[in-house]
C-alpha cells in the first residue's frame, strides 16, 4: 500500500471513529425511526409505543456471547429510571434528580452534562427520579422535578430555554420523558398524591411557548364534572407521569392518566371521577379530547392507568382494525379501537380479585367488599399493579405483545385525608400480605385475543420493562439485579448478567460502528452489552 493510500485509509478510519456530533433529529426522522434502527430517537423507540428494535444482529443463537462493553455510573443514590436516547455516536440520558448527560456511545464517557439544582425538601411521592429526555432538531428536552421544561443545545448541553410549567411547591413535578412530535414537545406531570389537578401540556419546540393544555379533570359545568361529588374535582389528580404514544396518521396523542385523589378512600369523591385512570386521546394540534376510555372508574386502589399505549394494526373477527393495546395496572389487558375508542376485548393477565370481569363495554364488574377498609382488605393486584410504568413491547413480525407482569396482592387500608397544598393527600394505604411470596413473569400475549403464548417466571414482581428486537429476543431485568434475554418465540432464557442492582427502567437497543448493543440501567449503572468478537 502506498503512503498516500495508507493516509487516505487512516483518514477514512479517523472520519469513521471521530464521526461528527449528531445531525438534526428532525420530526421526519423520528416518524421513520424504523428506517434507522441504529438509533433510538424517542422514549418507546417509535411513536407507536412498540419498544421494538429492528436490529437483528443479536439472536437467540448468539446472545450467550453478550458481554459488557462499558458501564456508566451516576453520582447520586436516587433511582436510575432513564430510557437512553441514541443519535449517531451520542447517547442522551437523564440522571436523577433532573440532570442530562450526553455520552459517547463507543466508550461511555460523558461529552457534556447539564446539572440542575433541585430543592432538597420538595413534595414528592416516589423519589427524586427522571425517566428520560426527548430530542428534536438540535435540542434535547427534559422535564424537571421542580416543574420546569428545559431545552438544551444537543451539541453542548447549554440551556436554550427554560420555562416554569407549574409550581413545584404544590406537589407538581416532572419525571416522565417528554414526547417530541412535529414542532411540539408533549409533557406529562406527576403529583397524584398531593391533590393537584392533572394536565397534559404541549409546548412550541423552538420557543417553549405553551401551545395547549388538556386538563385531565374537568371543572364544574364541563362534560365529566358530574362524575365528581361536590368540589372534589379540585383535588382530582389524574396525573400524566408516563410518556404516551402518538399516531401520526390520525394526528392523535394517546396518553394514560393516573389515580383520582385521594387514594384509597373515595367517599369524598363519589362518582366515576373522569378522566382519572383513563386513556385520553387528544388532537395533537389543539389538545382537544377526541375520546377517552376509563379503565377503573372510581378507583380506590391507586391503579394509575399511565401504562404505555401500544398502537398496532390487527385483525378482529376477520376485519383489519387500528387498535391500541393497554396492559393496565388494574390487572386487565385491553384492546381498543384506536379510532373510535370502542372496547374490543379485555382479559385479566395477572391474578385479580376485585372484578368478576369486564362487561361488553369494557367496564369492570366490581365485586362487593373489595374496597379498602380501616381494618385492611386483601385484594389482588397490589398497588403496584399487574404492571405499572415499566414499558411493554410489541414484536410486529411475531405479532406478540410482551408484558412485564407482577403477581402480588396487598392489604388495602382506608384512612382519612386532609388536603393542604403541597402535602401528601392520601387516605389509607397498603401493606404486604404476611407470608405471601410475590412473583413476576415476562408474558407474551397474542395481541387481539390477549391469549397467553408463553411466560418466563421471575423470582419477584419486576420493576423494569421489556425490549423486543427483530433478532427474536425479549430483554428484561429483575429486582435482584439480573438482566436477561429471552427467545421471543418461546420465552426460554438465552443470556443473563448479574448487574448488582435492581433493574427499574426500560432497556433499549442501538448500533454503533456496525455492531448492535443493548443498554440497561440497573442499580446506579447504565450497562451496555454487545457480542464478543
Amino acid at each position, binding site marked *: 500500500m502506498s503512503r498516500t493510500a495508507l493516509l487516505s485509509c487512516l483518514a477514512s478510519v479517523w472520519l469513521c471513529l471521530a464521526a461528527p456530533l449528531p445531525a438534526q433529529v428532525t420530526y421526519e426522522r423520528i416518524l421513520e425511526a424504523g428506517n434507522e434502527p441504529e438509533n433510538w430517537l424517542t422514549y418507546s423507540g417509535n411513536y407507536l409505543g412498540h419498544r421494538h428494535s429492528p436490529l437483528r444482529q443479536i439472536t437467540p443463537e448468539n446472545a450467550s456471547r453478550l458481554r459488557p462493553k462499558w458501564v456508566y455510573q451516576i453520582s447520586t443514590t436516587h433511582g436510575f429510571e432513564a430510557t437512553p436516547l441514541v443519535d449517531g455516536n451520542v447517547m442522551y440520558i437523564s440522571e436523577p434528580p433532573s440532570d442530562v448527560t450526553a455520552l459517547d456511545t463507543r466508550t461511555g464517557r460523558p461529552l457534556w452534562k447539564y446539572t440542575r439544582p433541585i430543592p432538597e425538601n420538595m413534595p414528592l411521592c*416516589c423519589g427524586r427520579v427522571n425517566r428520560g429526555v426527548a430530542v428534536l432538531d438540535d435540542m434535547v428536552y427534559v422535564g424537571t422535578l421542580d416543574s420546569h421544561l428545559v431545552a438544551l443545545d444537543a451539541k453542548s448541553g447549554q440551556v436554550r430555554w427554560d420555562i416554569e410549567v407549574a409550581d413545584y411547591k404544590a406537589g407538581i413535578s416532572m419525571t416522565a420523558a417528554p414526547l417530541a412530535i412535529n414542532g411540539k414537545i408533549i409533557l406529562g406531570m406527576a403529583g397524584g398524591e398531593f391533590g393537584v389537578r392533572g394536565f397534559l401540556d404541549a409546548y412550541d419546540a423552538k420557543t417553549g411557548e405553551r401551545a395547549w393544555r388538556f386538563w385531565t379533570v374537568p371543572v364544574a359545568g364541563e362534560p365529566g364534572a358530574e362524575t365528581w361529588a361536590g368540589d372534589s374535582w379540585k383535588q382530582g389528580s389524574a396525573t400524566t407521569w408516563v410518556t404516551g404514544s402518538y399516531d401520526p396518521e390520525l394526528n392523535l396523542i394517546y396518553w394514560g392518566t393516573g*389515580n383520582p385523589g385521594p387514594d384509597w378512600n373515595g367517599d369524598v369523591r363519589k362518582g366515576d371521577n373522569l378522566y382519572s385512570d383513563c386513556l385520553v386521546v387528544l388532537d395533537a394540534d389543539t389538545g382537544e379530547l377526541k375520546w377517552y376510555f376509563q379503565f377503573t372508574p372510581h378507583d380506590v386502589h391507586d391503579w394509575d392507568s399511565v401504562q404505555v399505549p401500544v398502537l398496532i394494526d390487527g385483525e378482529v373477527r376477520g376485519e383489519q382494525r387500528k387498535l391500541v393495546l393497554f396492559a393496565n395496572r388494574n390487572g386487565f389487558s385491553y384492546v381498543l379501537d384506536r379510532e373510535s375508542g370502542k372496547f374490543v376485548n379485555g382479559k385479566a393477565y395477572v391474578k385479580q380479585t376485585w372484578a368478576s370481569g369486564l362487561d361488553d363495554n369494557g367496564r369492570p364488574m366490581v365485586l362487593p367488599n373489595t374496597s379498602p377498609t380501616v381494618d385492611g382488605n386483601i385484594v389482588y393486584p397490589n398497588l403496584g399493579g399487574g404492571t405499572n*410504568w415499566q414499558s411493554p413491547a410489541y414484536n410486529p413480525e411475531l405479532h406478540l405483545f410482551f408484558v412485564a407482569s407482577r403477581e402480588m396482592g396487598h392489604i388495602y387500608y382506608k384512612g382519612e385525608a386532609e388536603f393542604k397544598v403541597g402535602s401528601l393527600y392520601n*387516605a389509607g*394505604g397498603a401493606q404486604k400480605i404476611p407470608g405471601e411470596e410475590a412473583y413476576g413473569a415476562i408474558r407474551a400475549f397474542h395481541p387481539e385475543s390477549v391469549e397467553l403464548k408463553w411466560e418466563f417466571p421471575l423470582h419477584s414482581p419486576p420493576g423494569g420493562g421489556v425490549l423486543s428486537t427483530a433478532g427474536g429476543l425479549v430483554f428484561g431485568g429483575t429486582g*435482584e*439485579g439480573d438482566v436477561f434475554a429471552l427467545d421471543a418465540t418461546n420465552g426460554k432464557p438465552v443470556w443473563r448478567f448479574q448487574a448488582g442492582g435492581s433493574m427499574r427502567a426500560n432497556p433499549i437497543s442501538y448500533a454503533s460502528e456496525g455492531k448492535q448493543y443493548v443498554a440497561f440501567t440497573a442499580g446506579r449503572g447504565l450497562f451496555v452489552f454487545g457480542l464478543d468478537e
Partner: protein
Amino acid sequence: MRLALGLALLCSLLCSSSWAQTEEELPPRPAASPENQALGEKLFQGHCAPCHGPGGEGGSGATLARPKLRHASDVEGLFRVIKRGVPGTEMPSAWQMNDREVWFVTGFVDSLGKRAPEGVPGDPVAGEGIYRGKGNCLMCHTAEIPGGLAGPDLTDVGARRSASYLRRSLLEPEADMPAEFLQVRVVTRDGKSITGVRLNEDTFTIQIRDYSDHLHSFLKEEVSEIDKQRGKSPMPGYKETLTEAELTDLVAYLVSLRGEE
C-alpha cells in the same frame, strides 16, 4: 401512585441524610380526647395488633404494654418510630397513615405503657442452663454466647417477642416462622439432596446454608428440584422433652435476652 411509593417513601424517610442528621419538627399533636383515643385504638387494631397483639402484649412484634419502649423514649420518639418504621427489622413505616392518624396511634400505644406489665414467671438462670444443656439451643442459635447459624439470632429476642409468643415457639416451632426464614431442599441433577436455610435467591440462582453451616450456590438450570418448605422448621418442639417448669424457666431466660437495651 407509583409502585415505588412504599419503598421510596420509606427510603426518603429513613435514608435521607438530612433526616438522619437533624430531627425535623413534628406536626402538631391533636388534643387528647376519648374520640381520638378510640380512633387510635381502631387504627392500632387494624395495622399494629397482628404483630403486637390486641393489647400491645406482643407477639411476633415487640411488647408495647410496658413503661419503656426500646426505640422510643418519649411520645415524639414513638411518633417517629410509627411513622418511619425501624430499619433492619420487620417494623414497617406507617406511610399509609396521615400525621393525625399516626398521632392517634401514638396516643394509644403510649397509653398501653401505663398498664401493668406482663409478669414473666420462672428462673432465668435455670433457663440458661436448659438453653445450654438439655435444650441444645446452642446448636442452632446465637445469643449471649456464640452458637450455630441455622436458627435466628436470639441476642435481643426478649425485646422483640413476647413471653407467650416464645413459649408457643418452643412448643410449636412451625406455628409462626420468621419472615426471612425459609427451609429449602435442593436436589441436584445427580440425585444429591441438600437441605438448609435460604440465604438468597433470584430468578436464576439460589444460595443456601445447610445445617452443618456449609454454603451451597446453585444455578437453577443445574438442579432438578427446589422444594421450598414453607412453614417447615428444623427446630424440634419441646413439649415432650422439657417439663412445664423447665419450659417456664427457658422462656424466662429468653425474655431476659434484650440486647443492648
